[in-house]
């Protein structure tokens, strides 16, 4: 927990390419920026998912590797000395009485700013949940979507569900810790790492784990906390397992997360904006890049760059309400660092 409030002009949520370039456009207009990203490094998808893949549609670069583009952007915004809060997810956004926005992260970092720029890309990656009626009632009371501390499961009866690498890996790992491990998979084969799949089959043969294939989760029961998991197999027979914990491991899917609760106009998991300045329905909050939507929207980095430029021109009036904005070319005036 940090008690020091960070003060800035623009708080940019998301440090992907579009969030980074917004710092440049804001900097030209003398606006200071602070970026927040849930990932531990800058670059968003480019650094996290495809750092070595080439991108062919950045103007002026016939071909550039994703990570190289991120590095170039970091170089480009250096004169404007942005602040970074990485590895923390933005949880709360509120407008204070003096018109200042207060942005709060999962780790308690608080940023006060004059305008908020949401450049969140695909959103946050959250665990994909199976469709079980009373699943939510047992979250944190026996249902966990990730293994944070394996010791929690020592000498417990656990059921893991899923067929991907993480389901296989955790089954192997927890086989030595838990009292009883059951892995439930909808299919009858595993397409994940062959080594892990082989190990899981071997553990099942040795009786160290209980492997139930061609079956899926049907319901869960308990009294306050989880007590049993019910499956349905291919023959439509119900299987009941006593369980202290159920760990569904169905991968991560991109979600808007807390942003969805900020009273912004949302259309199909994207934030609706006015294309004049990429403002949202709340004055002082902008959305740029893949997270916004408008008629004709193209999810391209270059579109996000354009959106950032127009956003900055508009955000200026929130940061410097008494000043008149005059448009200047970098070729004429250069880039004047802070």
């Amino acid at each position: 927990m940090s008690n020091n409030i960070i003060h800035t002009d623009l708080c940019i949520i998301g440090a992907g390419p579009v969030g980074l370039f917004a710092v440049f456009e804001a900097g030209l207009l003398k606006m200071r920026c602070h970026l927040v990203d849930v990932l531990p490094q800058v670059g968003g998808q480019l650094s996290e998912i495809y750092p070595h893949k080439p991108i062919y549609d950045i103007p002026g670069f016939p071909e550039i590797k994703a990570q190289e583009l991120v590095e170039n952007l970091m170089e480009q915004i250096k004169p404007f000395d942005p602040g970074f809060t990485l590895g923390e997810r933005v949880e709360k956004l509120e407008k204070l009485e003096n018109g200042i926005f207060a942005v709060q992260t999962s780790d308690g970092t608080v940023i006060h700013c004059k305008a908020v720029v949401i450049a969140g890309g695909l959103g946050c990656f959250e665990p994909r949940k199976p469709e079980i009626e009373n699943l939510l009632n047992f979250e944190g009371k026996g249902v966990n979507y990730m293994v944070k501390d394996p010791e929690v499961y020592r000498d417990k009866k656990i059921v893991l569900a899923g067929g991907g690498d993480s389901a296989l890996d955790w089954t192997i790992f927890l086989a030595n810790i838990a009292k009883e491990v059951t892995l439930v998979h909808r299919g009858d084969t595993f397409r994940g790492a062959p080594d892990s799949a082989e190990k899981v089959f071997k553990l099942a043969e040795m009786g160290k784990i209980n492997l139930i294939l061609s079956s899926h989760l049907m319901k869960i029961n308990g009294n306050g906390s989880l007590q049993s998991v019910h499956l349905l197999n291919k023959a439509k027979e119900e299987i009941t397992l006593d369980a202290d914990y159920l760990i569904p491991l169905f991968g991560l899917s991109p979600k808007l997360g807390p942003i969805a609760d900020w009273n912004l106009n949302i259309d199909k998991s994207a934030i609706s904006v006015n294309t004049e300045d990429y403002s949202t329905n709340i004055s002082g909050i902008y959305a740029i890049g893949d997270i916004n939507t408008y008629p004709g929207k193209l999810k391209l980095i270059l579109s996000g760059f354009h959106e950032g430029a127009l956003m900055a021109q508009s955000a200026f009036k929130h940061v410097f309400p008494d000043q008149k904005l005059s448009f200047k070319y970098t070729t004429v005036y250069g880039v004047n660092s802070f």
Partner: protein
Amino acid sequence: MIQFTVIDRNGESKEVEVPEDINLNLMELLKAAEYDILATCGGMALCATCRVDVESGLEQLAEAQDQELDMLDTLPDAQTVSRLACQLRVNEQLQGIVIRIKGDLA
């Protein structure tokens, strides 16, 4: 022309006809035809919101690559007939197939 059948979320079945040289993937085509899919990740096999179940003609399609298989493997409700529309090119392989729109809407 390539013709195939799309069953929407309400169970309504429609014939789709597109030229051979359309040069789109199936997700892009479904979006363009205003079918109800999110396609959050824009075709990178990351979100699985463009999942379809191939009810007929699965064997005609090019086999799924690792990235698509990895994603399908993690889904709680994927079937052996499930594919990601973003990983399927719209070409003659789709001739006569029947798909049902499935991916998550939230």
